[in-house]
């Protein structure tokens, strides 16, 4: 069970098909889902008789699934490749491990914006009035933006206060056309309905290629934040060992290389030898710009941040 759309298309080609070729006895069936929460919903509903063996989902959802005892722990016994993962790919108190890293980027339409914007605060410039598209909270893109700006404005501990980040988003808010770009922020910007915004790097890179460069992504000066997708081993799944075999393959340098070069998610296996051209389009070479976020600890303060967002950011955009 994993994401639908572009992710499904590229992951099937880069990882699932080669895995099936190498393991002729195992047939992988891909259950596409639009988001992690729906995957958790499915895991909850199928608790007594799970239908899936492996789930790829967001780390915070993976934590909830761990706490509800829906998963098996992935360790060296499941896959030897776990030892080669970057330290931040193994998350304490989460049964799954990271399979991709992605980061928030600023997007712009090259037809409408001639000079590439450099700072997140460029979104507040008068020329972008009514032209900004940001997936707002409760989506974690809006949340990430609050955290990035909070740090840029001198905030020290986002677990205690994000006032500075909320204030910064309040300055951008009057320019925002939609907090709910549909069907996706990339399409909204490529079509020219909005001209600047925020989105995830991997999907932005693929959309840059498919739109012939009409969409461009930049890593702004204030920095970016990682989003972590974990791979998870469902407890009591129907396929038994086949799940572990697939997880082992998904974490291997070979599969990590293939998927990064196909969709520009940063790899989580340190031994993956990825082409320079592909790695340059991930955040791997600009790690100093990626602010550290503890998504598990953050979950506890997400609700108060959401309340500030509703009371102090949204009204300024009306």
């Amino acid at each position, binding site marked *: 069970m994993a994401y639908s759309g572009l992710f499904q298309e590229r992951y099937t080609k880069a990882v699932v098909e080669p895995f099936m070729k190498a393991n002729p006895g195992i047939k992988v069936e891909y259950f596409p889902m639009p988001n992690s929460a729906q995957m958790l*919903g499915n895991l909850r509903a199928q608790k007594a008789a799970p239908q899936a063996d492996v789930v790829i989902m967001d780390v915070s959802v993976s934590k909830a699934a761990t706490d509800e005892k829906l998963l098996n722990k992935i360790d060296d016994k499941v896959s030897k490749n776990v030892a080669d993962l970057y330290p931040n790919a193994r998350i304490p108190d989460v049964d799954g491990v990271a399979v991709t890293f992605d980061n928030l980027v600023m997007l712009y339409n090259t037809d409408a914006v001639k000079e590439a914007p450099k700072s997140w605060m460029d979104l507040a410039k008068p020329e972008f009035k009514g032209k900004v598209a940001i997936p707002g909270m409760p989506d974690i893109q809006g949340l990430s933006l609050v955290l990035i700006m909070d740090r840029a404005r001198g905030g020290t501990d986002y677990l205690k206060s994000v006032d500075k980040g909320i204030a910064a988003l309040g300055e951008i808010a009057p320019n925002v056309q939609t907090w709910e770009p549909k069907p996706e922020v990339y399409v909204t910007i490529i079509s020219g309905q909005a001209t600047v915004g925020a989105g995830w790097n991997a999907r932005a890179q693929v959309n840059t290629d498919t739109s012939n460069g009409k969409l461009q992504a930049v890593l702004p000066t204030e920095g970016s934040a990682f989003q972590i997708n974990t791979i998870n081993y469902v407890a009591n799944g129907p396929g038994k060992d086949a799940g572990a075999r697939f997880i082992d393959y998904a974490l291997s340098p070979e599969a990590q290389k293939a998927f990064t070069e196909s969709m520009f998610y940063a790899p989580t296996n340190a031994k993956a030898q990825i082409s320079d051209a592909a790695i340059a389009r991930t955040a791997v070479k600009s790690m100093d710009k990626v602010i550290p976020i503890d998504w598990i600890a953050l*979950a506890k303060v997400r609700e108060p941040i959401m309340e500030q967002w509703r009371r102090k950011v949204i009204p300024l955009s009306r």
Partner: protein
Amino acid sequence: MAAPASVAEVRNRRLALVVALIAPIALVNAFGFLVPVLNLARMSFYEVEPTGAMREAFSLATWAKVVADSFYAELIFNSVTVSLGITLLTLVCSYPIALYLHRSSGTWKTILLVLVISPLLTSAVVRTYGWIAILSENGLVNNALAALGLERMRLMFNETGVVIGLTEILMPYMILALLAGFGRLDRQIEEAASTLGAPPLTVFRRIILPLTLPGIALGCLLCFVLAVSSFITPKLLGGGRVFLLATEIYDQAIVTLNWPLAATLSILVLVIFGAALVLYTRALRAIM
């Protein structure tokens, strides 16, 4: 020859027939509606950990939060007022069409009816995207305004967009409900009033309107219920600024994973529907 059945026997047999006829739908309703609603009610008392993990416990925390947090009071008030506004606007837009349809006859009436019903054959998502093409900044309306030398207006990604979109989407339901309730309206009564010297406005106020009140009540009930529970249109045309019960339930269930809160809000929606139904029955009794 068999003995003639006694009165009691006939009555028993009739009762058995009624029970047999009602039983299937009662069963379907019990499993398809009652059980899920009871489950939902139970879930509203579960506990949620900050990480999103849900624990099957009995806790009033979610209900206390909904009662104490002014955001939810605003949310309910906003949902009800916006839905009432949409219902009223839908009524105003649909009434003349329904009246005209009621009076027309033959092939013309069939053609018009098909035209009224045809939007229902297209999904609300497609129709909402249609409205995006019309209302967006480079849409039909704004381009026309610009061509006339007027300033562009922000018609969507706000409450205006939601109201316009939902009104159009609910109009077929309103028209059909109005037509269903127009049974008592008779052209001869209007003519009688006119021949007695009533001007058109008086005929409308004192004859047509009172006779069509049952249809109005039915249409309003239907549209209000549909407006409160509508989700796709506010999500697409609201731009993340318009907070309504249905969109909030989606966010809590699908994005923040707070199923107990989503369950609590769903129960509140059911309470609102119950209140609307009570008002409708009272109104109907007063009219008839």
